[in-house]
């Protein structure tokens, strides 16, 4: 019977399709596992009780799971200082970075002036500098200014590192705001600055937020510059503290894991939430450390 034959063909076809879908999902699940597993392991280690921190146990929720490592992070290390230091340095850096970037981006977006193309190329060119090349002279400058182990020294060292990206992303956003809005404001009675402060900046809140977030994550996660400028454990940012915790003894793994998780969760939440915008800005500006 042809009807039965065609039904069989269709059934086979459907089965093949289902198999294909299952394979794709299987591959994706495997990939996700590879991506997430180290994070889950940190969670597992952080929950291990003191006598079983070092073990070949692979279970995600270890036997006798406990929060003791978290308590020890706060009690036995300067973790709160580190967090606080990171927060202060990062917020100050981001504010300075966004303030400098917004006016510069506006100039690039709205005016024609000699050297404009060159300026944009220079911004892009700073991304080509070998990492570490600027750390040495910055370190020496900060040492001579007697700013070692200070917030100010860190902010100075960080403040322009994300500037090129911030300028690119803000310029991209300003470009999308119709000029007629500023013209209307001019006719309504503002100065050119007034048009910028009253119209363009309030309208750019999303882009300003993204630039701020980018500055924030860059400075928050930075390690190499901090290593050189901060030598006092009370002045450490959390990246330095964490590295030292992990480096010393295996017995501190539990604390290392707990501290890692504490700093990772909020940063990741913000990052996942903003990744879409960050990405557009990034391919636009071409920065990520």
């Amino acid at each position, binding site marked *: 019977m042809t009807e039965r034959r065609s039904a069989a063909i269709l059934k086979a076809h459907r089965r093949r399709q289902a198999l294909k879908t299952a394979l794709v999902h299987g591959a994706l699940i495997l990939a996700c596992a590879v*991506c997430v597993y180290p994070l889950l392991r940190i969670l597992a280690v952080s929950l291990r009780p003191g006598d079983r921190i070092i073990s070949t146990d*692979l279970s995600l929720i270890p036997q006798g799971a406990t929060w003791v490592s978290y308590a020890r992070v706060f009690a036995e290390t300067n973790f709160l200082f580190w967090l606080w230091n990171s927060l202060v340095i990062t917020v100050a850096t981001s504010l300075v970075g966004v303030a400098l970037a917004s006016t510069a981006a506006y100039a690039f977006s709205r005016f024609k*002036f000699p050297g404009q193309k060159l300026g944009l190329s220079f911004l892009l060119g700073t991304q080509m500098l070998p990492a570490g090349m600027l750390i040495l002279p910055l370190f020496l400058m900060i040492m001579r200014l007697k700013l070692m182990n200070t917030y100010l020294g860190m902010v100075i060292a960080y403040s322009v590192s994300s500037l090129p990206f911030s300028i690119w992303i803000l310029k991209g956003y300003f470009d999308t705001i119709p000029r007629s809005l500023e013209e209307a404001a001019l006719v309504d009675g503002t100065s050119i600055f007034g048009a910028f402060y009253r119209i363009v900046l309030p309208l750019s809140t999303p882009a300003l937020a993204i630039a701020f977030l980018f500055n924030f994550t860059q400075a928050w996660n930075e390690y190499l510059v901090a290593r050189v400028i901060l030598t006092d454990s009370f002045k450490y940012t959390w990246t330095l503290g964490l590295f030292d915790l992990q480096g010393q003894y295996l017995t501190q793994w539990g604390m290392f894991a707990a501290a890692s998780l504490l700093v990772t969760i909020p940063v990741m939440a913000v990052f996942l939430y903003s990744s879409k915008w960050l990405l557009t800005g990034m391919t636009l500006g071409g920065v990520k450390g």
Partner: protein
Amino acid sequence: MLAPVLQVAQFALLIAGAVALLEGWLHYHFTRHEKSWFVPVGVLGTMALVLAGAAAAAGGSVEPSRILSLGTGTAIAEVLVALFFRHVVRGRHSLPIMLLAPAALGLGLLIAYPLVFEVYLAFHDLKLTTIMAWSRTGDLPFVGLKHFRKVFTSSPLSEVSFWQLLLRTVWWTFVNVFFHVAGGFVMALLLNSVTRFKGLYRMLLIVPWAMPQVVAVLAMRGEFHSQYGFINIMLVESGLGPVQWLGQHPFLTCTIINVWLGIPFMAVVILGGLQSISRHYYDAASIDGASAFQQFRMITLPLIKPVLAPAVTLGTVWTFNNINVIYLVTGQAGGTEDADILVSALYKAAFAFYRYSYSAAFALIVFLLLFTFSMVWLKWSKGSESLYD
């Protein structure tokens, strides 16, 4: 608990005040340069600012001779600046210049000046034994090209040579970028072919990218531990025996970790590109009889190139410049040199071996290499065009 808060408040005020003063100073110069009182007020104001700043920095008391020299110096500088504003900065370009000034000043002081300083360092001799004298007097002996020669003749660290580092850097960059792009493509194509759970998969897949790099690298490093790392546990379980990853194969370990770190970014970029390709091209191609592979080669690849080219350019530069992974994996005391690439050796030479001038010369050579490569690459791929758009 109160002390740090006060300290921070003070610090915040200092930062805000400095930025406000700078902006105010600039604003004055840009907006008032046509007025007759522009020069005298500018000179007096700037002198007052500088002297107040000097007094604050010195803790309240400044010697009269310092006041005199500082005051005259400032006054002369300010007159020059004022004349510059009056006669050069005017007309329709004054506004953009003013808007750019703060950022340009920052970039100049913290990028351009350090670069110049780096060149100065490379031709002089600053090392652990001369740094104390230098920080007192500011004088350094001139040594010409000595450090540049030494880069090629002696090891930047203790054993590995410049040429080994160069080769390893090229290999490191190539392998990493290759796997980033290949892995990114696989991930993106897989993601693009499903409809259910797509958002969830995407979110989980970018976890390595979203984690703070320090945490991600250190966590992965733990998994390579010879006894307690996941990988060796599995190897032992399956009877293959433990591998001394960190001790004997540090470069391989770093490469694996960096591939793991870098795939998500490429995957997301490529996915974005894939989603921007209209369904209609594939419909037309499949009616024309193109196989899946032919569709990938004839439609996907060419249409994704504008997205891929800049991402690959950036990925290459980032990988070339990646100190983080190698330093965090091998950088602790007594670490191996077998995984070092140019930039990580550069960092270690300066801050683990304290060879400042040497590493400055080293940095300039690396910079020239990267710069030449970038120029050639950008010319060849026209990647710069799509970076601008």
